[in-house]
């Protein structure tokens, strides 16, 4: 943590990028989701539109189809989208980083441009029924042959696999080595013989999550990402990008709901019980904290600090904000609980997952204790 002054403002070139992007948005109306159109299909249309303007993968080098700018430029775009209530940036950043850091040059050239363009949709095959928090305990096995592997096992919580063409898959390649050294990563085309995708209905009624059954699926050696055994390191890089506080698109989404609560409080001033008014105030504070926190992370990056395990702090703060916010919103808008429940009720249900996906809150606390506070390990 830097304890000297930080600049929380945007440097001039970020400011210029924001203005360019706003001008582009003014000329390209946001697409509307058609009735009955599944969310991922709608998001893919949006992804392609953004890509046509050159607004996807700003921090990816140009030779792989990006713009060769920095993560902070990507953050600025995410911020602008949130501010105008547009759907967020396509959530491919963490996958792109896995390929950039661990993939071969041939794989990067082959996969990244199509990923960025939205021509190929990816999903993430990490968790298993028996390996959630204990990801290293996965049992899906990739058996080595001369120039290929045969994969057997089952994956779970693979978001939108039914709409995806490719999967970043983790599987064990060594039964004897310690867990953290025996996992490898693969790019698996989901139309391979032996792959079965089964959507799972989530608590809010959406079929985002899927199960993936892998019955003796052939995967080529050239489809392995990085060396054998680097899968764990790859997974850790990926999830820390997933947990980043710099994902300001998410924060803007909270900001819109906070404003709605405040407007309601202003209209009903005096009509809301004191306790509820304070709870709305608490949501405002949570939101301001998160905005300030994301800006501080940006400022620290600009000051030359590299990202580390502090993304666990970021995720716990995001979780706190999201769960308290949706809980308060239901209290303020009780009609959302009537009948089958409104849209806000669906979002409330989804907010309960925030402390589970991407590493549970307990896992984040373990990471903070060990990697930030350096507390001694048990036994």
């Amino acid at each position, binding site marked *: 943590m830097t304890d000297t002054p930080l600049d929380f403002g945007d440097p001039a070139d970020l400011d210029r990028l924001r203005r360019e992007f706003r001008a582009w948005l003014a000329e390209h109306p946001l697409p509307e989701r058609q009735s009955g159109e599944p969310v991922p299909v709608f998001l893919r249309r949006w992804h392609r539109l953004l890509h046509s303007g050159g607004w996807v993968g700003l921090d990816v080098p140009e030779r792989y189809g990006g713009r060769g700018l920095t993560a902070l430029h990507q953050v600025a775009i995410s911020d602008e989208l949130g501010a105008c209530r547009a759907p967020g940036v396509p959530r491919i950043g963490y996958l792109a980083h896995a390929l950039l850091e661990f993939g071969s040059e041939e794989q990067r050239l082959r996969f990244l441009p199509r990923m960025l363009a939205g021509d190929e949709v990816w999903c993430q095959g990490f968790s298993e029924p028996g390996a959630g928090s204990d990801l290293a305990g996965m049992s899906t096995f990739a058996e080595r042959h001369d120039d290929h592997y045969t994969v057997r096992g089952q994956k779970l919580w693979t978001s939108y696999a039914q709409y995806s063409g490719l999967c970043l898959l983790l599987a064990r390649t060594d039964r004897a080595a310690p867990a953290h050294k025996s996992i490898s990563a693969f790019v698996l085309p989901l139309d391979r013989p032996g792959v079965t995708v089964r959507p799972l209905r989530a608590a809010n009624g959406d079929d985002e999550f899927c199960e993936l059954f892998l019955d003796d699926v052939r995967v080529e050696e050239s489809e392995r990402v990085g060396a054998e055994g680097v899968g764990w390191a790859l997974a850790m890089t990926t999830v820390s990008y997933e947990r980043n506080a710099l994902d300001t698109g998410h924060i803007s989404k909270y900001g819109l709901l906070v404003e709605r609560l405040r*407007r309601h409080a202003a209209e009903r001033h005096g009509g809301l019980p004191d306790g509820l008014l304070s709870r709305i*105030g608490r949501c405002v504070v949570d939101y*301001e904290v998160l905005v300030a926190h994301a800006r501080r992370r940006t400022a620290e990056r600009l000051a030359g600090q590299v990202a580390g395990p502090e993304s666990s702090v970021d995720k716990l703060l995001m979780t706190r904000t999201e769960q308290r916010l949706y809980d308060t919103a239901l209290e303020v808008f009780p009609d959302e609980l009537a009948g089958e429940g409104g849209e806000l009720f669906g979002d409330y249900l989804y907010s309960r997952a925030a402390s589970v996906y991407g590493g549970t809150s307990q896992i984040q606390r373990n990471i903070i204790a060990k990697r930030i*506070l350096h507390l001694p390990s*048990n036994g």
Partner: protein
Amino acid sequence: MDREEFVLVRDMVRSLATRFGVTSADEVKPSTRTAAQQALDELGLAELRRTSPPAATAQECALLAQEHGRRPLTTSLLGTVLLAPELLRLLGAQPDTRTTPTIALTRELRFPGQASTDLVAWDCEGADSALRVSAEGTVGRVELGPAAPGTDLVRAVRSVPSDAPVEVVGRLTPPDRLRWQAYALVVVTAELVGAASSFVEQAVEYARVRRQYGRPIGSFQAVQHLLADATVLVEACTSVTRYAAWCLDNEPPERALAAARAAKAEVNSSALEAVYAGMQVFGGIAQTWEHTAHLYLRKVRLGSTLLATTADLLPALAVPEVTR
């Protein structure tokens, strides 16, 4: 200040804290108080915020206040060095080194409203008068009465005689009154952040060495999670306070005041909760008079009512129009 200059000033405050930081409540005596304050005065830091434009940004002042909060100190860095000179600067008053005012607050330690309110001179070690800002922004100088007892054992507070004459120093413009409130909130909040973060770090250090059941208590997951949660709270406090300070330097006063209020609201509850967690890790020893834990607790608990309480802030923050 440029970065090197700031680091130099911060390190001066840091070494002052090492020399004069109280390691037990019994060390708080008039003679040690005077010596510590003299050492602070010799640093000449009141100049940082006396000139216009000021030599130090609000963010730099907040970082110094944070540094000051890291140890129990009897020195009046906040009152006489950071707050009162800022008030005079906003008034455009000529720098006057012959007097050392601090600031006056109500007996409940809030911003004074009505002129007739019962006042105290807050953080008045080495001060010879106090500046009071009325609800309309009139700034008056008042005399100091005898020492007033306080729950924060290291902070000096004196009463202000109710019949004492008020010498009017000037009047703040409405935007400057907002700036003043935001600045005061940020400086006070930053000191509490320093206290909470330092105390949690000490608790982490203790968890590494204190052994029970044959191993360090920091190896137990229950203790680890307690400290991890306290760390998240301290990080939240740090982020929101630093951003509020930056807003004072870069944003309009309304925005800076809103950010400062959000920071105070977060710190009121989170810094206190972080200190509770730290005390729980220290266990029995933190319940004794000799240990510094209660000095941190006293500062942060009283600090959560200082200038603005959670009960004041949350309902006001819930409604966008209200800019009291």
